[in-house]
């Protein structure tokens, strides 16, 4: 701890340099079990975009990329001044790095973003030529103008395209089920869902279910299928049909009380104490439980948006 404090003090004495971004990217294609630590929590928040595969992205050149991105941002910010790459007068510091799990949270980040591909469809990934690196999920947190600068630099350098990722209904339903399942270990407080119904004027329904009740419903949904297959208790294996039944249970309960059929509308947002996800791509994940599953779902969402 003393070493950390010393390091921090040394950083403060350096001239004013704002840390623009801690750019992390993950290149994991297989589903290993990680020991995820707190570093993820700070990063798993922001707005999602999908990215077409990057051309000639070399993870050996991260330092060079950091320098170039830094110069690019500085040049765009200070209009009319050309900035030398790697020069000393930069006031922005950019760092590209692979996310290491023992990494601390870098202090004073103004902007943060990451590119990743977790459990991507292996057929699709193998169909791409060797020059391409497929990192379809991009998350950015911070000032909007910096986000657009970083995106435009990436577009120019790696010839990729960014588009807004709309989290689809399937993924949102999955998240609802996963977080409900988490309640057995961590208290999720309640499960909140926001639906929009296509009427005039548009109707927005906020449906909040107490955590114990929703867990009961989830358990009862699973019991019928658990009879068929006796799996080990610790290995959680959820079928999508169970998720569908769970959602139908929730919706029919709502219908019984309010005579409004939620299946005619769209699920816009799912949130609990463990995080929230909106259909416009904004996510916030506060717990590391099921992180890999969640990111696998999001990666699949992003891969669905690939044009070819």
């Amino acid at each position, binding site marked *: 701890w003393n070493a950390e404090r010393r390091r921090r003090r040394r950083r403060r004495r350096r001239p004013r340099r704002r840390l623009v971004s801690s750019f992390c990217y993950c290149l994991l294609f297989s589903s290993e079990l990680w020991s995820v630590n707190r570093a993820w929590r700070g990063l798993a928040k922001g707005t999602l975009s999908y990215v*077409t595969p990057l051309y000639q992205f070399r993870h050996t050149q991260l330092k*060079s990329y950091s320098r170039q991105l830094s110069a690019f941002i500085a040049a*765009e910010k200070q*209009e009319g001044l050309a900035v030398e790459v790697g020069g000393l007068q930069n006031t922005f510091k950019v760092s590209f790095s692979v996310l290491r799990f023992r990494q601390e949270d870098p202090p004073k980040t103004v902007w943060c973003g990451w590119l990743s591909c977790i459990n991507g469809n292996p057929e699709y990934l193998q169909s791409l030529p060797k020059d*391409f690196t497929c990192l379809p999920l991009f998350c950015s947190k911070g000032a909007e103008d910096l986000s657009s600068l970083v995106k435009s630099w990436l577009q120019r*350098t790696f010839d990729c395209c960014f588009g807004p990722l709309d989290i689809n209904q399937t993924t949102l339903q999955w998240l609802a089920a996963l977080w409900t399942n988490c309640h057995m270990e961590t208290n999720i407080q309640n499960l909140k869902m926001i639906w929009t119904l296509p009427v005039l004027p548009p109707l927005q329904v906020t449906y909040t279910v107490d955590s114990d009740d929703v867990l009961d419903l989830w358990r009862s949904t699973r019991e019928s299928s658990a009879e068929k297959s006796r799996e080990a208790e610790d290995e959680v294996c959820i079928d999508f049909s169970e998720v569908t039944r769970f959602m139908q249970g929730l919706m029919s309960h709502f219908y019984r009380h309010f005579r409004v059929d939620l299946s005619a509308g769209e699920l816009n947002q799912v949130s609990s104490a463990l995080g929230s996800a909106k259909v416009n791509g904004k996510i916030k994940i506060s717990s590391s439980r099921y992180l890999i599953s969640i990111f696998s779902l999001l990666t699949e969402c992003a891969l669905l948006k690939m044009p070819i």
Partner: protein
Amino acid sequence: VDMATQLNLSDSDSSDLSDQSVFTRRSNRSLRIAEQERRKKEEEDPFVLALKYFSEVEAGTPVTGNDELENNLVRVEKVAFSRGLSPEAISVMLDFAMSLRMGNPCARVLKCLLPASVVPQEAVVRAIVWLTVRKLPISTQTLHFLVLVLFQCPFICHLLYLLTRKENGKPGFDIYFSGRQPYLLYLLSLYKVFCPELVTLSIPSRMKSGFKNHISPWKSALITVQKRNDMQVASSISLAFAVRDKTASRKRKHAHLELPSLSPVTITEPQAAQSSSRKLVPMQQIQSFAQLLQNMHRIELPAQMGSLLGSSLALQYLDCVQDESALLRLNFWLGYTLHEEFLFCSDGGANKNPEEALQFLNRLLSVQHFLQEGFNSSDAFMYKFLNVWDGSLLRPQILGLLSNIPVIPSSQIKTLLFDPLMQLFFTSSLFFKCGLIECLNHMLLKWLTWHSAYALEDDLDISLNSHTNITLSGFKDSVMELVHFVGRLASVGLQLEGCHSLLLSFILDFYETVCDTFLKFGLPLVVMPPPGVFYPAFFAADPVSVDRLAFIMHRWETIHLVQSKPWNWYLEYLFTQGFDGLKDFVQNSINQRVMMAGDGCDNVTQSQKLGSAPHIKQPLLS
């Protein structure tokens, strides 16, 4: 008097050359006279006189209130803004401006230095000499214009490159500057175009500076002059001015439809092979086809492949090179743009800016027409889009893109193409039906053309998108499926529209193409128009439809005569297709012909058949 003396001179000359033939003497005389007349006209030309004034005016002549100066300047300006100034005129005016014979060079003089073709090197050198010798106190505005004019000379860029280069490629001297000097930034961005590896600066993409206010009218005047002289506006200046003008285009949230600018790759790997092997030429520098051919083996593709869609030269290069990664990059960008603009927009994005969408699709269509084939990404987009299209949004463009779809295997053609098209067809207007039939006609034609070209090439893969290797039988199946599908559409469509003659005309066009499958394209297929098409055409009220049907029947006849298949076979075939009535009809006409044996006449037209046909046994409309 001058004219007379000149004529006399010419006469005396010609009389002295007695050994020359009369003809040549006369022709010489006429040439000489023409030349002298032209010279006379030039001398009297006010523009020429004005130029003469500027070249001869003495130092110290007062500027203000000088009417002669004013008039001459106006004359020069008039010519400059309409046609542009010739190189000699440019050098005269530049000399006048920079030599300070009449005070500080005013921006007005420099503004009218619009070159018609090029700025000569001597003028540039002289101007620079004046600059350095006289140590002129020039205002920044004047300096801007001066820089712009000088850079019209391609020599300058090359000079700059040579000055800053040593033998081993390292820069000869460093460019130092500080502070905000926008015109120097423009110079640097220009320089970066020619030698990107020497300019390791990051130049902001949007350079808003005072430059814009002064130069945009000048720039537009320059472009107008060059266009009038039919010059390619592809000089180095226009490259620098490709800086996106944010005020011109509306600020849009999703600016997908703008093609990315053709910029060279900015990141060079540290141990690049450049120093050892050939120097790569960025695509941006290739301005003409001759240049493309010269540098074919060492062209560097741009950073963003989407920018190639704007340049036909680049597309030609792409077609030859067939680099898989490059094509995939282009397809990713194109697919992304199409999806974002038309498929993923939840707020009706395409409806908000139909003009730009229209232009984009037109450009895509022209590119596909140029390359004679479509792109993988646009095909994938079309299959998805057909399911959600309403049939009226950008109809001609979408139908055009549809006709460029390559051959689809017969196992997938139903789900991918036929089902959505059927839905669209039966719920649409007459004009859409006609348009769709025409589109499917073009599609069939393109499939047949592609197949005939591909079959000839044997092992060579000539296509850009490496179509899946479809076998001949697979191809035949697909074509059969398409023809039958159109037959079904046509039959029901004609019933719905009451045998409308316009629709019938498009359908008969299609069947003319079907006739060509064997004759022109060598594909052994025999497909007759179905009853639902044949009978409406046969009994049509307008003679044109009947004539066209007769033409089609005649062509079938020709095929079978060429094939020398016996008539029995033809009749049997008709019978299997359910053409009982027709079979009888033809049978009777054949009997008629056999009775009139010995004619050897192949051209038995429908009218003759009609004239000689006996009554039909079975009802025709069953």
